[in-house]
């Protein structure tokens, strides 16, 4: 019982009650997580209470929802009413949101049970999850390496089979890159597809919530319970939500796949290039039409992203003042000290760096040279994709230029860490959807991810291509060493 589909089957047939499902997930966390530290907090009582409600509904002949009893992990950046939400930051210690994020409301309505708060880079700023104030999460494939970030806890928890699925958030690759580095499947939906209400903001014009799971099929089962218009988020799109699972019944014949030449560059790890090239051959052999395309402004994406994201962050993070919620530096004796001591000691180094950078690019005299310039280049990057999608249905690229790097390796070299986002940030700038699926392993046994991109709101195409890929390969089903033996049966209680 590992994939969402397997968990749901066991729940539907009665082989496993909702209480059994939650108990099983909690036991797996207790067994595996000490080695990985993917989990920030669990609240067994709350999860079991929701499970019991579902079991009672089922016993009483009521339909408890299509995801009834499914345990899910939540990145610690998404609000659950009265559950501590820290964004892995000291400054939010003690923050218990007074409301649920819309995605939490929707998941609960479908019967899914949030069981764990998952680790991340502080305020989702990082590509390694070693910028968490609380714990360093390790990669299940090699515990001396990072799981990727910022949704590293989500990816590690799913890869280690602690939980069948998790929510992450993706501002510049924070779902796709950890999914790639941990060997799981992760989707960043189109900007506006999923409500951001209750997602703690990092860069509001780029942030998007999305699911991580073992298979594309699982993603297709979850997405209908995340997507849709929300009156609480004025930037959520008022468009119909397609029947996502229907995408799984279409094959690759006639699909035009674009391969951007700018993504096969110096610095691309040879094992990654080999895996992605092999994938292209397999796609072509199975009826897809692979053509080279150009996204000429690719090399400007990182610079554009780090100007826009930090500018938005400096504004969004102004709200952490030591007054309204969370933590206050205890020795503050004046109002000014409440602000400046709380923010110095409450934020970690990377967050402070990004706030200062964002303050700089927005400050008088530099706004036009940096921020406005970046907004214009963003237009060029978007146009690259719009033109490409005139001739292709989807674009296929590596997700990350390298497999997982060593813990702490880029901690003191922020620019090097930023450059590792080279294949993912353009997607957020353009607002298009992106999916990462496992596509091979390095000689050291580390997972490699394949990124699939489509037109805005064409998640159907991603699911179609991704699922077809997973019908042809089994990389997504391989187990990391931390859980080499299968967790086959649920824990049942008399």
């Amino acid at each position, binding site marked *: 019982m590992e994939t969402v589909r397997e968990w749901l089957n066991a729940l539907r047939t009665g082989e496993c009650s909702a209480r059994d499902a939650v108990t099983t997930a909690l036991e797996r966390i207790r067994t595996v997580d000490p080695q990985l530290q993917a989990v920030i907090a669990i609240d067994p009582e709350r999860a079991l209470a929701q499970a019991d409600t579902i079991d009672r509904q089922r016993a009483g002949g009521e339909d408890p929802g299509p995801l009834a009893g499914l345990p899910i992990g939540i990145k610690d950046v998404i609000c659950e009413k009265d559950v501590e939400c820290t964004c892995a930051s000291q400054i939010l210690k*003690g923050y*218990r*949101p*007074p*409301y649920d994020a819309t995605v939490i409301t929707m998941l609960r309505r479908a019967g899914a049970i949030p069981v764990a708060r998952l680790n991340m880079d502080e305020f989702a700023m990082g590509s390694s999850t070693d910028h968490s104030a609380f714990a360093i999460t390790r990669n299940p494939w090699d515990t001396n390496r990072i799981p990727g970030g910022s949704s590293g806890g989500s990816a590690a928890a799913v890869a280690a089979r602690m939980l069948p699925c998790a929510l992450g958030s993706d501002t510049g690759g924070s779902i796709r890159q950890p999914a790639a580095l941990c060997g799981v499947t992760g989707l960043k939906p189109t900007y*506006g597809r999923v409500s951001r209400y209750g997602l703690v903001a990092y860069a509001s*014009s780029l942030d998007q919530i999305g699911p991580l799971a073992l298979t594309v099929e699982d993603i297709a089962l979850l997405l209908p319970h995340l997507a849709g218009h929300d*009156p609480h988020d*004025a*930037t959520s*799109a008022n468009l119909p939500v397609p029947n996502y699972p229907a995408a799984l019944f279409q094959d690759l014949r006639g699909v035009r796949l674009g391969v951007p030449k700018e993504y096969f560059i110096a610095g691309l790890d040879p094992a990654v290039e080999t895996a992605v090239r092999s994938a292209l051959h397999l796609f072509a052999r199975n009826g897809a039409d692979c053509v080279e395309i150009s996204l000429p402004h690719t*090399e*400007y994406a*990182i*610079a*554009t992203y*780090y100007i826009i994201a930090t500018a938005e962050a*400096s504004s969004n993070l*102004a709200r952490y003042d*030591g*007054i*309204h*919620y*969370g*933590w*206050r530096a205890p020795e503050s004796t*004046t*109002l*000014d*000290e*409440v*602000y*400046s*001591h709380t*923010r*110095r000691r409450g*934020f970690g180094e990377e967050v*402070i*760096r990004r*706030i*200062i*950078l964002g*303050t*700089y690019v927005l400050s008088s005299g530099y706004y036009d040279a940096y921020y*406005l*310039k*970046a*907004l*214009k*280049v*963003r*237009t*060029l990057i*978007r146009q690259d994709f719009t033109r490409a999608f005139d001739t292709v249905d989807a674009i296929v690229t590596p997700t990350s230029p390298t497999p997982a790097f060593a813990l702490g390796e880029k901690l003191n*070299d*922020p*620019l090097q860490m*930023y450059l590792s986002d080279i294949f993912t940030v353009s997607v957020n700038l*353009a*607002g298009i959807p992106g999916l990462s699926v496992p596509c091979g392993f390095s000689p050291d046994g580390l997972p490699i991810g394949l990124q699939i991109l489509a037109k805005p709101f064409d998640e159907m195409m991603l699911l179609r291509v991704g699922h077809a890929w997973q019908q042809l390969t089994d990389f997504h089903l391989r187990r990391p060493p931390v859980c080499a033996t299968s967790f086959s049966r649920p824990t049942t209680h008399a």
Partner: protein
Amino acid sequence: MITPETVAYLARLARIELNETDLARFVPPLQEILAYVAKLNELDTSQVEPTAHVLPLTNVSRSDDPLPSLSNAAALQSAPCTDEGCFLVPPVIE
């Protein structure tokens, strides 16, 4: 080129207390990042419109219906310091 004085000024704008040691540590990576992002100057964007937002949305409005709002207790539940239903801060008036 960004200097320790600039960073001190920006930190002040952002209300983050940085001491001399912090400044010495923060300046070099910021210089490196800003030198890198200057790469955008290679592009002529004089004829390009800025994109602040990817969705084709302008002025999203809704009907002005009264709805329940947060209670005083809920609004204060995560505040580090409260008193008599208010957020408590150090005195700001002599």
